[in-house]
């Protein structure tokens, strides 16, 4: 049984309310932090090794230490609750069922950063969660954890929820800041980084919900204790949101270092494949990270057990690895059509591109168009190389990582499932008129392609 530090109280009746949350020990980290210096709190987070849980995995304590304290400008903490990566729904779960944990984390983290005005930026589609957070913030304010002179410490903090309006790009931290300023979510060129010039050109730290929610435990128990959980540079626990062809979809808190095999097959977690069909592929970290075929899921290219860590999931680079990303764990059985799935993701990235950079604005559209014609049985053999060429010209050539996110799934699908693309091109009559997402189990028709280039 993995240790739980975020969801350990999730089954306590009424934990959504301030009264129960406080009775269960809530807000203790604020009391403790207010007796420490802000730098001491930052140091604990650094010691913990906590890495940003939004996808990039950058060390949170280091990010905090970059904040410009010399400018004399107001500083801000902004929580990125714009959870929009396909396959990812963990932050919503946390905010919906234990909202005070995030608010406690926001207060403790804001104190560490010297911020007196902080925001939670939540995606507009989570409107009922927005209202849950607003109610919880009001409860915290009434109990004296927000406002002027918190608990007599002399520290002031105002905290508000701000809702977006349907744009995946606003999960990118500079686009999120633009949106928080009431503008289109166009990412900014970095540098300057937000720690120097962020919200209203003030020093700003943007952290994901799960990252901020881990801070109370770290302050209460010390960074050193947190660093004991997990393996190597993948310290602590991680929320994984699991979906697709598995018996038990949902949100799980795991200790980093758990094997992918155990996570996939044990009854404590996903419980194996639904309908007992064979496993074909999985995406471990949300739609933007590379898909891995069955032979690379449980073992790395070196034959070692694949673990749920930043390092093990990316082992061997994109040729044989993927990324932990946001923890959006999508599982595909043998009836899943990789080409149709890749087209679906490409449509998503085309739709969500802000249009600021030409390689992304045009390239995502080309990817979608070419994939669509292959998928619908009008593709040409050279289209597969054309797709490879287009994705390679998007990656690394855009202001923000959305371009990379659009390119990687296509590259991985061709790298690992080229034979399936070839099958689509050579046997279009097999593709047409099938039941939407359901493909023939590819193993049964693989021989038709001839040379298989996995």
């Amino acid at each position, binding site marked *: 049984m993995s240790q739980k530090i975020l969801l350990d109280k999730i089954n306590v009746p009424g934990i959504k309310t301030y009264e129960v949350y406080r009775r269960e020990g809530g807000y203790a980290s604020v009391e403790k932090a207010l007796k420490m210096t802000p730098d001491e709190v930052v140091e604990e987070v650094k010691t913990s090794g906590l890495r940003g849980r939004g996808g990039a995995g950058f060390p949170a304590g280091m990010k905090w230490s970059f904040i410009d304290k010399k400018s004399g400008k107001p500083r801000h903490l902004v929580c990125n609750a714009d*959870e*929009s*990566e*396909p*396959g*990812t*729904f963990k932050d*919503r779960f946390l905010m919906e069922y234990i909202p005070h944990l995030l608010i406690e984390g926001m207060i403790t983290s804001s104190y560490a950063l010297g911020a007196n*005005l902080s925001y939670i930026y939540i*995606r*507009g*589609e*989570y*409107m*009922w969660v927005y*209202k849950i957070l607003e109610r919880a913030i009001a409860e915290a304010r009434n109990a004296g954890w927000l406002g002027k002179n918190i608990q007599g410490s002399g520290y002031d903090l105002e905290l*508000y929820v*701000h*809702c*977006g*309006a*349907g*744009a*995946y790009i606003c999960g990118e931290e500079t686009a999120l800041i633009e*949106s*928080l*300023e*009431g*503008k*289109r*979510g166009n990412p900014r060129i970095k540098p300057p980084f937000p720690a120097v010039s962020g919200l*209203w050109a003030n020093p700003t730290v943007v952290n994901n919900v799960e990252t901020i929610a881990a801070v109370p435990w770290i302050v209460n128990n010390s960074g050193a204790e947190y660093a004991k959980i997990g393996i190597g540079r993948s310290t602590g626990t991680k929320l994984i*949101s*699991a*979906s*697709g*062809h598995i018996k038990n*979809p*949902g*949100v799980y808190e795991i200790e980093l270092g758990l094997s992918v095999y155990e996570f996939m097959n044990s009854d404590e977690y996903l419980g194996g494949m639904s309908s007992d069909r064979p496993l074909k592929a999985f995406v471990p970290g949300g*739609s933007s990270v590379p898909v891995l075929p069955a032979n690379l899921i449980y073992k790395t290219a070196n034959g070692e057990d694949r673990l749920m860590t930043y390092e093990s999931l990316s082992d061997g680079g994109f040729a044989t690895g993927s990324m932990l990303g946001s923890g*959006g764990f*999508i599982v*595909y059985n043998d009836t*899943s059509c990789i080409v*149709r*799935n890749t087209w*679906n*993701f490409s*449509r*998503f990235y085309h*739709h*969500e591109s*802000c249009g600021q950079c030409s390689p992304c604005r045009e390239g995502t559209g080309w990817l979608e168009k070419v994939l669509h014609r292959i998928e619908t049985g009008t593709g040409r053999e050279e289209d597969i190389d054309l797709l490879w060429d287009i994705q390679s010209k998007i990656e690394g050539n855009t202001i923000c990582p959305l371009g990379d996110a659009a390119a990687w799934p296509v590259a991985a699908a061709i790298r690992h499932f080229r034979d399936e693309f070839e099958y689509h091109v050579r046997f279009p009559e097999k593709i047409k008129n099938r*039941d*939407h*997402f359901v493909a023939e189990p590819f193993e049964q028709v693989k021989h038709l392609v001839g040379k298989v280039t996995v």
Partner: protein
Amino acid sequence: MERKHYTQDINISPELMARIEELCSHYPEDKRKSALLPVLHEVQDAHDNWLSIELQDKVAEIIGIKPVEVYEVVSFYTMYNQRPIGKFMFEFCQTSPCCLNGVENLMDYTCNKLGVKVGEPTADGMFEVRGVECLGACGYAPMMQLGDFFLEHLNEEKIDQLIVDCRDNKITLHDK
């Protein structure tokens, strides 16, 4: 292509105005523009879930920014509607995890049942079906959003019942 101009009655009630000012107070006094997205949500909810050009101009006036600053935001974000839409907008998530669980068939079923195509309101203006990108409910697929709420683990029976409940006015669209 000619763009159709839609008009609507504008009604900024004292209650709505108070809520707008409260939202503006969440930001520094000289940063009222930051309240634009939340304010647009409130104004849209109070105006049959869409925003005419005239209404956008009114929002610009209230916040104290140029109309074009509102237009560029409304046209960028998918949750703002620039034309009248069906009262009950069924927004099906059409991204991969929902597709793996049959959302495409369910959209077809709903459209056939209502006699509409995706993106076209029913003749009585009651219903509309729309495909949207990932709504963050992948483990509970297939799903849709209706007003402020998520409806998960959908199937044909649930859709049938939902349509009946909408017609019987049993559905709350916004959690106030």
